């Protein structure tokens, strides 16, 4: 017989009395787990769908002059790039701390060329990363596979009468149009897209870039932080955040998160109160028993140990039950909320946290009743004959 065995026997043989306590604690823990899992799933959901929101960071070369364009109307055709952007600089992005938060990097080189007697903007791009970034692009035709293949924007195709299969002469190189972009409503409609390397070669701008579009998300740090990290790696470039893209969705999630914390706190308070009242009542019921223990020579701390151990054992069960039921419910609720629930999986750290939470909660809530029990006057307890 050890002290903890007294606690164990007490639980084992008085199950019905402790059932309420177990249910109450389990509901509290379960609710907290559900809320945490759902808001976490929402965040991860956003992260995986990030590229659907397009770029949110723009890297351009530093310019000496102030911008002379407003609302898409350029007042001056010339602006001298003091230090052109290079691919070597771009590679440094891999060194930033939050590199794992970057979903896509789409470098571009912009040039003008004459096709069918007209000036046209040609963009050298990396088709794979561009298509990853711009999920809304719809190609009639196919994705270019060869260096000599092109995709043309919708407006360009209309104005220059180009269809898939046409051949165009660009800087004395014959290139084949393999796809026409469906109307995007953006500047992309007025651009001819070719492979980055080819454009760099044709226009004698090896390794150079005009701009880089980056799609990044970090839900535990602001986008400005990633911007600053990239800026540090590319000191001669200008790195800007495009705020509107996902900021509003992030704000909605953070509101839900705050709401979750609020509800969690209330649930934990209620759980704590259940433990407190159950153990307070139990101490009154068990006055006699405590008197016996004291008459046998148990110290106050022994009484404290028996009661706290009981609370901790029950809270262990509640922690496990709460975690499991919370996980199952969160998965169902996530489906109901149309949130991708694949990220809701058994996580040992989460389980340990829920155990810890449960133990700390009921330990703290049973402390006062336990102290009260330990301080009971043993004669008082014995005399209740």
């Amino acid at each position: 017989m050890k002290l903890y065995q007294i606690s164990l026997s007490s639980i084992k043989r008085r199950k019905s009395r402790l059932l309420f306590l177990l249910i109450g604690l389990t509901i509290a823990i379960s609710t907290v787990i559900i809320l945490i899992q759902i808001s976490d799933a929402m965040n991860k959901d956003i992260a995986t769908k990030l590229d659907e929101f397009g770029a949110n960071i723009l890297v351009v070369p530093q310019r000496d002059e102030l911008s002379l364009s407003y609302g898409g109307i350029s007042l001056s055709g010339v602006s001298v790039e003091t230090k052109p952007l290079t691919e070597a600089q771009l590679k440094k992005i891999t060194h930033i701390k939050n590199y794992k938060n970057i979903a896509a990097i789409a470098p571009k080189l912009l040039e003008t060329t004459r096709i069918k007697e007209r000036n046209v903007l040609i963009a050298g791009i990396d088709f794979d990363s561009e298509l990853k970034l711009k999920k809304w692009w719809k190609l009639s035709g196919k994705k270019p596979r060869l260096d000599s293949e092109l995709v043309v924007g919708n407006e360009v195709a209309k104005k220059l009468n180009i269809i898939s299969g046409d051949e165009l002469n660009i800087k004395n190189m014959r290139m084949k149009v393999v796809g026409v972009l469906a109307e995007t409503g953006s500047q992309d409609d007025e651009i001819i897209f070719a492979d980055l390397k080819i454009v760099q070669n044709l226009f004698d701008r090896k390794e150079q870039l005009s701009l880089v579009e980056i799609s990044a998300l970090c839900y535990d740090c602001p986008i400005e932080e990633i911007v600053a990290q990239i800026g540090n790696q590319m000191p001669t470039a200008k790195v800007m955040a495009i705020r509107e893209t996902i900021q509003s969705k992030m704000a909605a999630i953070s509101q839900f998160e705050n709401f979750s914390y609020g509800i969690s706190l209330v649930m934990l308070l209620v759980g704590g109160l259940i433990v407190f009242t159950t153990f307070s009542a139990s101490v009154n019921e068990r006055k006699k028993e405590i008197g016996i223990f004291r008459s046998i020579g148990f110290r106050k701390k022994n009484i404290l140990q028996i009661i706290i151990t009981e609370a901790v054992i029950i809270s262990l069960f509640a922690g496990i039950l709460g975690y499991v039921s919370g996980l199952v419910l969160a998965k169902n609720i996530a489906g109901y909320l149309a949130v991708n629930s694949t990220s809701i999986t058994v996580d040992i750290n989460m389980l340990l946290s829920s155990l810890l939470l449960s133990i700390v909660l009921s330990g703290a809530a049973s402390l006062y009743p336990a102290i009260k029990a330990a301080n009971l006057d043993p004669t008082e307890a014995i005399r209740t004959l």
Partner: protein
Amino acid sequence: MALIEIENIEKHYGKNGTNVKAVSGISTEITFGEFIAVLGHSGSGKSTLLTMIGGLNHPTRGNIRVDDLDIYALNPEQRADFRKEYIGFVFQAFYLIPYLTVLENVLIPFAISDLSAAKRNSRAMQILEKVGMADKADRLPDELSGGEQERVAIARALVNEPPIILADEPTGNLDSVTSAGIMQLFADLHREGQTIIMVTHNQENLKYASRTISMKDGRIDQLN
């Protein structure tokens, strides 16, 4: 040499001016191996005297020395240790822990001792054998008769081998046949040298004791 020296102890109960003297000025000595019966009507202060000897009830005045130890000069935790070391209580209402089996109840005093598990169990079974309860070691208290519960309570008081057994109306709730069995058990323990102080209001029980202290209104009425 005296095992217990009681020196002019008083116990007053009550608050808000209503002061009841449960024990008013008792002095006596009890030596090793005595079987004392404390006789008195209810309210005579005999149970109060017993709990004071057992270190559970602080006297308002006076001293109690057990084995030369002034037990009320100790702090409450030291007094708990004193009870563990010196005292085995047997109560009228048996006071077994309802959710522990017979064996577990007897093992309670060992929960705060360093004895090995094997030694504890053999000692507990040995003492249950002695009180005739070994075959019911796995029962819960509410499956036992009153006399059986009392035997378990006695086993629990004895298991630690304390020098002093304090019994408060041990036969109070039992029929005469069962009472006789319990009293015989106490008499056997006494013969083995156990010091026993028993509070009773039953004249029948006096014949087992080596000495009787009669109490009336908180005082010693008569010594035999």
